């Protein structure tokens, strides 16, 4: 690898490593906002793999995130399991659900799959609200905190480090997957099923694998969320969350793993900004009016910058001759 490329990689890597503390240190975001963004990174990363690389779509990631949260909550608060075993068990359950759901639905064409996954996401939400085991609309409390390497989820600053370490792990794992032979098989499956089969790649298996992976990422993140907040309620896992995750993926760039943290932090920052800014414009504003911002961002990005921030960055770098003819699909 050439020196400039290594230097660029190191600089980029260093930037990503400290990104949350740049955001909080500069006063742009509070620590808890940064934690929210960091918790979404694995969820969005999974979605990017599913949408950008495997060419599928899932509007139901909120249900898998919720499964991790509720699974961990129920197993630790009601049955006294350790947070780590509960996390693992919930992730396995999420993987099973993804497999069960993916097998019949992934043969649906694009936008019909979108509808089906949205439907599944809402079904999950209704179950969270209705099933007695989840504590219903009031939710479930008493979730114990977790700690690792001396860092505990009871302290926001320490928890940010825990979540970010996990997020980075997911990002690096995904990046390696994408760059590997498996990743090429995945992209082939996503681009053209017939061509993939002709090359000996079974597309459905790869798409399912990625969907299961995305489910595991989302579930693990959900478990972390539950341990941090100590309490889970259905409102954190509604359809709006599924849409918010899609917005983050679009903003970062649907085909970019490294765009994911940018997308997550940008959307959280947007949320904060809208919360501060709009009431001064419209004094009577109440409720979740931020959706107008999300919608506008979605429409704008898909029209003007369809490859998201990473697409813009790549084009800019290419324009400045810092990157030659980057192939589509690399971060």
């Amino acid at each position, binding site marked *: 690898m050439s020196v400039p490329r290594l230097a660029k990689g190191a600089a980029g890597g260093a930037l990503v490593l400290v990104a949350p503390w740049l955001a909080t240190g500069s006063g742009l975001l509070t620590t808890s906002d940064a934690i929210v963004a960091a918790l979404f990174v694995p969820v969005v990363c999974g979605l990017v793999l599913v949408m950008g690389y495997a060419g599928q779509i899932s509007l139901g990631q909120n249900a898998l995130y919720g499964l991790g949260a509720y699974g961990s909550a129920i197993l630790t608060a009601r049955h006294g399991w350790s947070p780590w075993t509960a996390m693992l068990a919930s992730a396995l359950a999420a993987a099973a659900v993804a497999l069960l759901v993916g097998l019949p639905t992934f043969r*649906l064409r694009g936008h019909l799959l979108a509808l089906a996954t949205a439907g599944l996401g809402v*079904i999950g939400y209704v179950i969270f609200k209705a099933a007695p085991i989840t504590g219903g609309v009031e939710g479930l409390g008493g979730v114990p905190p977790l700690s690792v390497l001396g860092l505990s989820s009871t302290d926001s600053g320490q928890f940010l480090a825990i979540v970010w370490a996990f997020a980075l792990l997911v990002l690096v794992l995904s990046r390696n997957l994408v760059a590997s032979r498996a990743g090429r098989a995945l992209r082939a499956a996503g681009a053209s099923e017939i061509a993939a089969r002709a090359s000996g790649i079974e597309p459905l298996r790869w798409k399912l694998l990625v969907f299961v992976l995305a489910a595991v990422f989302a579930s693990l993140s959900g478990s972390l969320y539950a341990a941090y907040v100590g309490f889970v309620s259905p409102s954190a896992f509604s359809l709006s969350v599924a849409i918010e995750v899609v917005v983050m993926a679009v903003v970062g760039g649907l085909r970019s793993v490294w765009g994911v943290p940018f997308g997550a932090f940008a959307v959280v920052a947007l949320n904060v900004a809208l919360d501060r800014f709009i009431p001064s414009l419209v004094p009577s504003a*109440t409720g979740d009016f931020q959706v107008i911002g999300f*919608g506008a*961002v979605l429409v704008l990005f898909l029209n003007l910058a369809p490859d998201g921030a990473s697409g813009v960055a790549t084009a800019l770098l290419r324009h400045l001759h810092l990157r030659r003819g980057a192939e589509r699909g690399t971060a």
Partner: protein
Amino acid sequence: MSELAQYLASGLTVGAIYALVAVGFVVVYNVTGIINFAQGEFLMLGALITIALAGQVGHPARLPLALAVPIAVLAVAAIGAGAERIALHPRRGASPVTLLIVTIGLSAVLRGGALLAFGSGTYGLRAFSPGGPLHVAGAVVSRQTLWTLAVALACVLALTLFFERTAVGKAFRACEINPLAARLAGISPSRFGTLAFALSAALAALAGAVLAPTTFAVYDMGLPFVVKGFAAWVLGGMGSALGAVLGGLVLGLVEALTTGYAPGVVRPYLEALPFVVLIAVLLVRPSGLIAGVGVRRV
């Protein structure tokens, strides 16, 4: 017996609303290939704008309904056309999934905009005609219910005449059947795309206006109707307006009957019923029967 009649009556009424929303999906999908997630918001805007013009219940009346409703419908149709031109038309070559996500963004913008304009409160609209409920075939139906059914029926008839008998309507169908041939014949599919959005928005707005006296209007009332409209449309085969109408009525009836007869322990889960129906239909119908799904990428 009259209990069943009651459920049937309410099922048909709400089914008529689903039918109007679903027909809107058909019109847009067949001409442009887009699944319009914002359809529910057009219904919501139809209701809220009508109330804004006509005056809400408990406040002095403003415009007469005979004026307020058509103006609101036209306004929402204009919003639909504008949305298509601004947000969708520039990306018309993009994949259906991308366009679907754009419509999700549109629905969020419209919903957030309504929240800022109207607040989060509920608004009532006076019934279209005064008078108490009537007894029909063993069921007690409000006059607004009869209005709903009448409006839905009138719309379906008008649309059928439009598509079968008028030149514009036939041009619509030409765009749906073969856009290239249509273009060769001097018909502009892109302009008809905009028209399709305007028409489907008008249908949803009318549904919203006629629904408002019964269920109150609120900024987020649109979301459930999108999903149920989808379920109705998919149930009806996604191809024809008639299918959409039938799908809507069937869904409304199923909903009313299950809500009426379901045991208490099942009730909280019934909210998921339209989605279960949606997924069941999507999975059970082989993809080959779905008309006009668009070019299959090979």
